[in-house]
């Protein structure tokens, strides 16, 4: 048991560090001006926001995701896997209390997430556009997160490997605020501004769906 306490402690401190670092980033973000739309609305900001966070994310909602539906769905499930992995990290100290079927389910989910992440890593090497766009940080970030998910999968299957999971988690968490991984904290804001922009103008949700 002594073997696991120190890695657990390191992972715990990494969680605190990441929360503080992301909190600082959000504080900086919120200290900046947020422009106010003073033009009278033509559509509904509420409808625009609702669409931006729900149906607007559906694979069929955009030409780009209809065209690249496979890589889009891969990305969506990879990100669901990441949240699952973080959940596993939080509950892992009590993992012995969980029934086997739940451990297998969580392990499978994390394992699938790892595979989808690795597929994304390989895609960055193969797809000429992605290759041209990618920075070393892009490759490393997706690799680190994929390894994190792989060790989560492994840790739930073989409890003896949990210390590795904690160390990898700690590394990923400490790396996150400095790297491309931090895009996660800006996602909600970006969709917020998108929803406001298209909503107030009455562009989205699609007018023909609303009017007809």
């Amino acid at each position, binding site marked *: 048991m002594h073997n696991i306490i120190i890695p657990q402690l390191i992972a715990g401190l990494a969680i605190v560090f990441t929360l503080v670092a992301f909190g600082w980033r959000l504080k900086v973000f919120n200290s900046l001006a947020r422009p106010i739309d003073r033009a009278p609305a033509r559509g509904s900001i509420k409808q625009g926001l609702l669409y931006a966070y729900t149906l607007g994310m559906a694979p069929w909602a955009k030409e780009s995701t209809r065209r690249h539906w496979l890589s889009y769905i891969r990305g969506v499930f990879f990100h669901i896997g990441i949240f699952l992995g973080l959940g596993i990290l939080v509950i892992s100290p009590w993992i012995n209390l969980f029934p086997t079927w739940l451990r297998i389910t969580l392990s499978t989910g994390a394992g699938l997430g790892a595979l989808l992440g690795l597929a994304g890593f390989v895609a960055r090497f193969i797809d000429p556009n992605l290759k041209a766009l990618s920075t070393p940080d892009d490759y490393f970030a997706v690799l680190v997160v994929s390894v994190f998910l792989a060790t989560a999968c492994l840790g739930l299957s073989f409890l003896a490997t949990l210390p590795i999971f904690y160390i990898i988690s700690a590394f990923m968490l400490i790396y996150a605020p400095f790297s491309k991984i931090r895009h996660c904290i800006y996602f909600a804001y*970006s969709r917020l501004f998108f929803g406001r922009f298209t909503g107030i103008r009455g562009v989205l949700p699609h007018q023909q769906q609303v009017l007809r």
Partner: protein
Amino acid sequence: MDTNKTETALGILNKQLNQPLLAALEVCARCGICAEACHYYVAEPKTDYIPATRAEQLRKVYRSEHDFLSRILPGWTNYARITDDTISELADIAFTTCTLCYRCTTNCPMGVDTPLLMTTLRTMATATGNAPEMLEMLADAAVEKGKDPSIYLDYFLDSIRDMEKDLQSLTGNPDARISVQKKGAKILYVALAGAHTILPAAAIFETIGEDWTLSIFEASNYGVFLGDPARAKTIAKRIVDEANALGVKEIVISECGHAYYAMRWTAPNWFGDEFDFRVRSIVEVIAEYIQQGRLTLDPSANPGPLTYHDSCNLGRKGGVIEEARIIMRAVTNNFIELAPSRDEAYCCGGGSGLVALPEAFDIRMLAGKPKADQVMRSGATIVAAACENCRLQLGDLSEHYGLGVGVIALADLVVKAMRLPGAKDSLEEKITAQNSLVEK
């Protein structure tokens, strides 16, 4: 390296850094899914034309200033310090390889506002003297005209009196008038330079007995294209002041995408308050007349087949989408939609000032290729567009790609369908007449 220019550019970036800009700089995952959303990329699939690649050019500069990891490991994030040379390269990217059409944003899973990043680059370029000379000249000319309108007012009023005769013969109404700056009018109509945006609107307003008056200013706002809020505000202020002085209830903008976008959506933010009057596009007003039954239109007047091109500023960025369809269905029995259209429509490739740059002809013909292909596939012989820049670009595309289509404004189609006594018999004649009005 010119330190002053570099400092100016970085100063602009830091000054402009607000929440939407920071989110756009930080949130991109470089997934490349936006590639085919861009008409440049569709025309020529090279990585430089992927919206994310364009946006990366500003992100690299941002990282060099604001990112810890980039400072200690520059190669890790591909950061780039800004220099004199890179400012002009960035200016070229922002002014000639992006028309700020917003199609990439609506197609991005994150909603990355790449046009906002490109506008910031335009602002940086303009502040450092790297903006296209033609746009600078046009913006300055508008600012100068606004300072002392009396210089050209007599000439303007003379040309309006001439136009009034054309209006009377078109409408068959000897009492038809084009009032200029009439106090207390309900509508202040703001046209573009040239009779072609005044006469059709005047015919519609006079026929239905609208209480309207004409602005002495032009709706165009080249300050917007420059990403220069100070000049853009100065240009808009002429019209805002005019509307306030006349006490009108509403400003109606001619069929011009950027002018509508600037006055309807951006100007209230420049002036820090809601206006006392409403701002609408003539497209919205005509659609309302049709829905209210105030305009009697004969759809057989425009046999077509006709299609409609959605201007990005009016449609995807402005919300004026269905109104154009209301008009098209009322003026013809042979309306064909382009595919894709509405908020998914391709930009014509001439937007955001590109059509005004003689040196950008080749690239705008390239950027317009997806639109030209769409028009060709549609089988339409006439393309209607509610934006002057789009119409100019579509005309050039027709010639360049041998489409053989006529290009026309919605108001012209409406006038044709009104069966006015003096209206030209064929659409071809109408287009020829419109071209001569443009020259006037």
